[in-house]
């Protein structure tokens, strides 16, 4: 079978091998822009706090969510991050009455993409020189997509008030594009971007008008 495919034409064979190699490398190793700036909600900025600090409880929180919350809090004033925090009661994080305690949590995360099926098809079409144009045309016209859905919550306790307020929400990150991309690139970008987007959304709900907690 292989001999029939490649019979008597070393030049054609080398073109085929090169084509398969190029398509394989490009479709499994090349990175398109996986997430655009408009795929995430805008950052929220808190009103500057004259007294008290933001107390961030970040144990077990993924890095992108933690980074987003730190960046939000630093824009508004003093920030404290207790290294150890025992128990569920947010009040244990309060230092003075004007403090604001924030505890985010990430729930479920689900990722899906058609990149793997696409790449498999491109590699298959590259076996024959005659079907190479189909690879090129397909890569330009058949878009890849990747989407991730995450859910989570943000608990906010103004230390001078009695009860914490809990915000529960989900975030859907979807990106699309053409040409070549590998699944891992998309998965990693979305794994980083979706919790970040969720955190921004939760913060915009908790601090709707650049002011104090709702």
């Amino acid at each position, binding site marked *: 079978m292989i001999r029939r495919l490649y019979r008597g034409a070393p030049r054609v064979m080398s073109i085929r091998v090169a084509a398969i190699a190029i398509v394989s490398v490009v479709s499994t190793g090349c990175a398109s822009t996986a997430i655009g700036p408009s795929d995430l909600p805008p950052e929220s900025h808190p009103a500057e706090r004259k007294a008290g600090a933001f107390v961030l409880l970040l144990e077990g929180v993924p890095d992108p969510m933690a980074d987003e919350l730190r960046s939000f809090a630093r824009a508004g004033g003093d920030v404290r991050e207790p290294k150890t925090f025992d128990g569920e009661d947010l009040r244990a994080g309060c230092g003075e009455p004007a403090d604001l305690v924030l505890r985010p949590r990430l729930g479920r995360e689900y990722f*899906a993409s058609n990149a*793997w099926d696409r790449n498999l098809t491109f590699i298959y079409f590259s076996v024959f020189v005659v*079907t190479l144009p189909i690879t090129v045309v397909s890569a330009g016209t058949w878009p890849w997509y990747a989407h991730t*859905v995450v859910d989570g919550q943000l608990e906010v306790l103004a230390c001078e008030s009695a009860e914490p307020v809990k915000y529960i929400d989900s975030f*859907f990150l979807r990106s699309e594009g053409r040409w070549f991309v590998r699944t891992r690139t998309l998965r990693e970008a979305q794994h980083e971007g979706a919790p970040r987007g969720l955190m921004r959304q939760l913060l915009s709900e908790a601090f709707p008008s650049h002011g104090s907690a709702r």
Partner: protein
Amino acid sequence: MSRVAAIAAACTLWACAGTTSGPEQTPPAEFQAPGERISVIEFSLEGASISYAAPYEAFGLLVAELIAAELRDRGHRADAVPAGGTPTGDFIVSGRITRIDGGSRAARYWSGQYGGGAAKFGLEGYVEAVDQETRAPFSDERWAGTGPFGGESVSLVQRCVRQVARDIAEMIHTGKFRQLR
């Protein structure tokens, strides 16, 4: 000859990618919910018929987010609400997933064109106005049976999920709701 066969196979494969089918549906019943704020609540998995090896726990939320995204594309103000969240819309969309079936890749490879081994996804639910007692029930199911080398079950189920979300969003947008017979 082998080249012609290769081109024919390639074209068939390419042309079939992305298509879904589904069971017969009833004629539409009308219920208008245009222009208002719509909350799509996470669909539950209670009582669903599930034959699927990959993770599916977040499918109810995924389909709610996809429906909300499709509604936004059609000019509505829509958001998805996870279980435990508080819906804020004037219209509420809710329901349950009825079927998640990954099908059989081997069966699809040999007879996918004829429906063999198809991946399937179905749901049912209703739209209701917060301040009214009227409800518009809907149900939908999609099947996908073609893909490269039979197609990966995860990709095909995703294709069905996306198409079901498009169908439901279209029903809400046009106000013409259908149910499976």
